């Protein structure tokens, strides 16, 4: 799949997920504390939504960084390495993020 298509698809998904995230998690502003998050995250649907959000946000961030770097002629010569680095960072961050989301369990 082209970087361009990855950016478009993840951008449209982010418009949905980020809106949900902002409204549910941050508005109206309050002191975030652990128990409030645990109550919401007890529902597995929220875990699924957060994992999908994580997937698309990482896709958009890394494909975007790749596009920013390969725009510069010097870096565009090393685009294979950049793409490899983006995939490695993406896989690691997705693993770490998923672990974090699943760690929000009531009996922590």
């Amino acid at each position, binding site marked *: 799949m082209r970087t361009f298509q990855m950016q*478009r698809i993840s*951008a*449209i998904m*982010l*418009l949905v997920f*980020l809106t949900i995230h*902002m409204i549910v998690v941050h*508005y*109206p*502003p*309050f*002191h*975030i*504390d*652990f128990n409030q998050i645990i109550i919401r995250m007890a529902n597995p649907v929220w875990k699924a939504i957060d994992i999908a959000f994580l997937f698309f*946000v*990482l896709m958009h*961030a890394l494909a*975007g*960084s790749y596009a*920013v770097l390969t725009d510069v002629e010097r870096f565009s010569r090393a685009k294979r390495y950049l793409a490899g680095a983006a995939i490695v960072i993406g896989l690691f*961050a997705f693993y*770490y*993020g998923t*672990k*974090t989301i699943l*760690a*929000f369990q009531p009996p*922590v």
Partner: protein
Amino acid sequence: MYTSSGFISFVLRRITGVALVVYLFMHMWVIGSVNAGPEVFDARLAFVQQPLFKLLEVALLAAVVYHAIDGIRLLVVHYFNVTQYRKSLFYAVMVVSVLLVIAGGVPIILFMFEG
């Protein structure tokens, strides 16, 4: 140097995009502290809820909102034949972004003073 509305939106898109990537990994680091237990999590969250960070949150909101609305503009340009309205679209993005940032930023500032 060739400046135009398109160039300004391009530069802003790049700057906000890179800033948001940096923020994303910081955000994952803060939330990821839950792996180390609730005490570490609450400590790190308390650290990032100081007044200075509240102001940075408004800047973050501005970056997110601008990047998102500008992205919608690009989607519109891609799927509809509207290149002749490029200047109007640029100003529309600016106006909508400013309104959304005010609407979203005022509650953050008010909350900051309430403590």
